[in-house]
């Protein structure tokens, strides 16, 4: 019940309610990447950046393409709308590490290079953050693999 209800709130863009039900669903089914992927966005949107980042790192450790190659339309991914909304909100604290991490996470659903840009900016603020370094590494690695395909 929880996953389906979480899915409904997610497509209705009620991230707080979706987060509640998806968290319950993830406890029941901890390896469900679909639930995790939605929860990453929910946490990012409800200010629980560290939890979002943790789930995000777990996914890209095993399957970065699960985020990078998401079909935005087919999966009704809210990230493009979120980014559009963020761009229109100038009052946000653009220099905080959470803000950079959140943008890095959300951008990975839409554009890997922009994602890396925000993670790099976060690293400048917190240089000794191993999980962040690992995320940047994985993203770099994936960018290189993409580039190598094109250079071949």
């Amino acid at each position, binding site marked *: 019940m929880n996953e*389906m209800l979480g899915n*409904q709130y997610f497509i209705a863009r009620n991230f707080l309610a979706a987060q509640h039900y998806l968290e319950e669903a993830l406890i029941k089914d901890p390896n469900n990447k679909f639930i995790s992927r939605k929860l990453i966005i929910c946490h990012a949107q409800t200010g629980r950046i560290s939890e979002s980042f943790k789930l995000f790192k777990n996914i890209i450790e095993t399957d970065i393409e699960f985020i990078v190659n998401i079909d935005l339309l087919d999966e009704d991914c809210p990230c493009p709308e979120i980014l559009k909304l963020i761009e229109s909100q100038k009052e946000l604290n653009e220099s905080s590490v959470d803000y950079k991490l959140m943008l890095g996470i959300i951008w990975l659903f839409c554009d890997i290079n922009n994602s890396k840009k925000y993670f790099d900016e976060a690293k400048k603020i917190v240089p000794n953050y191993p999980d962040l370094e690992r995320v940047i590494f994985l993203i770099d690695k994936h960018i290189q693999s993409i580039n190598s395909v094109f250079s071949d």
Partner: protein
Amino acid sequence: MLLSDKLKDNILDSIGEGVFTVDKNFKVNFFNKAAEKITGHLKEEVLGKFCKHIFRSEQCFSDCPIATVLKTKQNIFDYTYSITTNKGNKLPIKINAAVLYDDNNDPIGGVVSFRDLCEFELLGKNLMTKKIFQGMIGYSKQMQEIFELIDEISESNAPVFIHGESGTGKELVANAIQKTSSRNEFPYLKINCSVFPSHLLASELFGHVKGAFTDAIKDRQGRFEIVNNGTIFLDEVAEMPLQMQIQLLRVLQEGTFERVGESITRYSDVRVIAATNQNIQDALRRGTFRDDLFYRLNVIPIYIPPLRERKEDIIPLVKHFLNKFSIYYKKEIFEIEEAAIDVISDYSWPGNIRELENVIEYAFVRTTKKDTIEKIKLPNTLLEYKTTTQFTKNITPVSITNSEKSELLAILEKNRWNKALAAKELGIGRTTLWRKLKKYSLIT
């Protein structure tokens, strides 16, 4: 025997309600033919898409029916929802929703059946119009059959003969027939055959030429000429003089007539609706109404039952008249006491709806301080009728004999105590009368 998926799809495609199912991500995985018809989306276009992108309802974001079922664990029935059709129109629908579960009782999707609410509204309107048809109120089966018949004959040009007691609404039925007919754009004239002397009736119906009679100072068209291609309503047709009946029969048979005082034959295509409050069979027996005319007119007979035979119409009519008089007298009286309703319902209404209307107006006018019609404000005729019938209902055999005694006395008085005449009027023998007189001590 288990049904195949294809057969199940065929079954769901055959029903009138739109049906769609979604998976646990709210992507459509079934969409039946009725759903295609209602929404304007083709099945192929919607399968695999999120339902919110198909139905584009604001309620998808705030009030998803499947989410409600998930939360409440109660299926939803007849829930009003608004969707956007493929053409971009807002469409109100009534929906039922349920959640689909797997063998482990985990939700795996949802099913929604829905119906175009406009259809409901149309149905409701149709039902309303069946009860209030062309200004007539008829909740009773008899009246609804009449409304249905009027609908059925709307394409016909055949003559209609309306039978019914005075005040039953024969003219309203005639109006409805005309209004729903294919001739409704053409002239419609009414004539009460009982109010014209025979020579004037002929002039009214067929016209006259100058000099045809003393007051005929110029040529004049008759009603049949004026309403060419239209409809004429001949009220109280049984009162028509026999000579006129022959002329009317000719118009009905041939469509021809002559103006009074003229020999030129004229033609007119007129649909005739006739009405009478007389017992037409009696009139035929007495020879005051021609058989051949009767059969010509009685192609579509309509019998309007008296109000006493359709008591279920009384209260709706009372309400209708209360509304009417509220507007007319600018008084807000919309209620009527239960006791007053009892009196009204028990009354026999010999004057039918016309009498009921008069009674309500009388009570309405008399009601000054309250917003409810009270029993005591009803006319005495009704109140006494109630008393009499109640009295009669509780009557002992003595009362009956008392009534017989009164009747005897009345007839004896009328016949100046001539017992032979009284016996004749009572339809009893003189010996029987003598025995009764003895019994009631009316003779010594």
